[in-house]
């Protein structure tokens, strides 16, 4: 209370604060109860991933990538490996493509569920939070049976996947998708039909399309403002040009539309999972063991870029190599880095109580922003 200047209070939201529960610091200047200026301090979870890409062999680098964003490890593995595979002009076998799509869509479901569950905890509604977390837990158990790890699995390999998924695990995933419809009604009841939820999130943090494009925002945040941009359809990778799906758009651009859009995307991911399961259940005896020693992977000289649609936005991976065993330069473009910039703009004039709402609706992960 010693730094009150006229009517404004300067408050520091240090990292690991209960408001954000992430490793970002903010310097906030409050005017009464409203925020008048906000600056962010990044760098608390900077790991030097890009430098590590130059010092490690490629096989050693793969587990490190999965720690960039601990909720979406499959997406980052795929982004890196698809750039390398394009560079070396390798085509993936069909089985590996189906498995990659399956696991990536399951990962998208877990990421969206954890974001919504965390938000219900912010609102102090514990039973809703546990419904979301229990559903996420079933999928994490499935990941454990596939690869041995719940959150960071190290399952993708240069040229395919490590081992195949046996029939029992596929039937478990099928059970999950068949029970999904009733559980989804409960989840909708907690969010879309809950008047307190609507009251807390409607008409707050509105971002219009022009602003979003200038700040380079992609993914759910952009689709909630009205522009239908999905990089699975713009630059189709793996099998997305053959599978049928349709990502919806909403036109309001406030916090409620972002949360509602994430709920709808879970439904679409489940349909994609069902389509992959149809093919996999009939061809699940294929072998896909690749015998490449981890330290011998040696891509050709050149450079390549890969585009992946992650749960929070667009993930780009630039890879430059000179033909040796270590890469010359790896550059990651992560979506949370740009969401923080628009957070600073969208928060002016709102209370501290709305800070947590908007922060969670933009789906910011500090570990991803800092790399």
């Amino acid at each position, binding site marked *: *209370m010693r730094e009150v200047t006229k009517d404004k209070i300067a408050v520091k939201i240090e990292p690991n604060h209960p408001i954000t529960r992430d490793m970002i610091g903010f310097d906030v200047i409050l005017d009464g*109860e409203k925020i008048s200026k906000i600056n962010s301090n990044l760098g608390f979870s900077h790991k030097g991933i890009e430098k590590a890409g130059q010092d490690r062999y490629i096989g050693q680098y793969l587990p490190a990538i999965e720690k960039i964003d601990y909720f979406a490890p499959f997406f980052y593995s795929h982004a890196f490996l698809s750039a390398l595979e394009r560079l070396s002009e390798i085509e993936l076998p069909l089985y590996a493509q189906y498995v990659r799509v399956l696991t990536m869509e399951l990962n998208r479901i877990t990421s969206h569920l954890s974001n919504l569950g965390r938000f219900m*905890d912010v609102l102090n*509604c*514990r039973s809703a939070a546990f419904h979301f*977390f229990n559903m996420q837990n079933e999928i994490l158990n499935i990941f454990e049976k596939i690869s041995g790890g719940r959150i960071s699995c190290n399952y993708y390999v240069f040229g395919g996947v490590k081992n195949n998924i046996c029939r029992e695990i596929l039937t478990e995933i099928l059970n999950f998708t068949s029970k999904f419809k009733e559980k989804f009604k409960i989840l909708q009841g907690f969010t879309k039909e809950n008047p307190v939820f609507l009251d807390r999130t409607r008409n707050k943090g509105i971002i219009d399309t022009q602003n979003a494009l200038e700040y380079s925002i992609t993914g759910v945040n952009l689709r909630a403002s009205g522009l239908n941009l999905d990089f699975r359809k713009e630059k189709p990778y793996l099998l997305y040009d053959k599978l049928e799906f349709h990502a919806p758009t909403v036109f309001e651009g406030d916090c409620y539309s972002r949360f509602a859009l994430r709920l709808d995307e879970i439904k679409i991911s489940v349909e994609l999972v069902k389509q992959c399961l149809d093919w996999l259940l009939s061809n699940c005896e294929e072998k896909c063991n690749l015998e490449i020693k981890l330290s011998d992977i040696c891509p050709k000289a050149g450079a390549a870029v890969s585009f992946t649609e992650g749960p929070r936005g667009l993930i780009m991976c630039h890879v430059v190599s000179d033909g040796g065993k270590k890469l010359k330069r790896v550059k990651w473009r992560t979506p949370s880095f740009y969401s923080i910039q628009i957070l600073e703009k969208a928060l002016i004039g709102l209370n501290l109580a709305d800070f947590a709402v908007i922060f969670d609706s933009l789906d910011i992960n500090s570990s991803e922003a800092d790399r």
Partner: protein
Amino acid sequence: MTNAASTGFQTFSSLGDTIQSWISGYNIPEWLTITIFLGLYFGLAVILAIIIVYVLAYTERCITNVFAPYNAVDEDESKKHKILMPLAHFIKLFLKEGFRPQNCQNALFFVSPIIMFSLILCAFCLIPFGSSVIFLNQNFSGLFFMVFFLMALAIRFLAAYAGGGKFSFIILMQEIQENIALSIPMLLCLLGVSIMAGSLNINDIILAQAASYGIFGWFFVTELIAAGIFFVCVLIFFDKTQLYNLNAPVDTVFGYKSEYSGVKLAIFEFCEYLMLFVISLFFVCLFFGGYLSPFGAYILPEFLIFLEQIFWLLIKTFLVFLIIIAIRIATPKLSSARLLEISYRILIPLSLINLNISILIQYFSGVR
């Protein structure tokens, strides 16, 4: 008893009378009898409070298991009853370091938990547990109860101020607004009920609900609006904190308890449960007949009637407590601005309407 009357209290109960006569038979000066009497009362009340809070904490744990089950744990383990869990929680808090921040106000910091606890005990002693087991039977005991309760809530402000941090300051402003906005409807409801009953004495309010047809003579039938308003106010007052939440209320780190740790924090959490219990006792006394049985007559013989009265009172408060906790877990939290809007635009006008209706009813059915 002239000793007690000279200090201004009127002890009316058979229990208090017997204890006092027993003590004063030893030829001790007046002030000593009073202090021993009060000391015995507070000692007994502390023990009772510990038992009550233990039971309440355990029930909250069981209910969270029903509404918010965490399926990651083995099913066999999660079904084992964790009856010693509240004990573990409080022991853990006692063993932590009692950290004192630099900018705190020293005297208030050390004293505010104790003041809160003693105010709640003062409120606790005004409630009749039976027609002959009242500790203090004053003419305006309903109003005194609300005064003690609201003062105990106001100690939250002192605690937030004593913390001395910037977040505590922001919390202070918010909480003052909310407390004022929510206590006005409660007082108006109390007035409405007292007009129907004819006095502000809690015992008289309970006796005014005694009729031969039992449950339909209670005040929740004729004063449904007031009961609803009171219940909503109680829910909102205690919506913010739960004992076993993994993540604290978010926008203001931990509320008014942000700067406390160790024993002081344990006392604050203890007092939260106790306040909830005490206000639900009051709620039951006002609207649900207190210690009256719903059948209109008692089963046990006359010399054991106080047992049955205590039984009915505790059962009713326990049910009210269960409902409050169940609603608390399953519903999200309102933002502060919306809360103020609800109270000033909906609750206060409704309670005034209720007051007018009860005045008109009493006027046209003869003056009491």
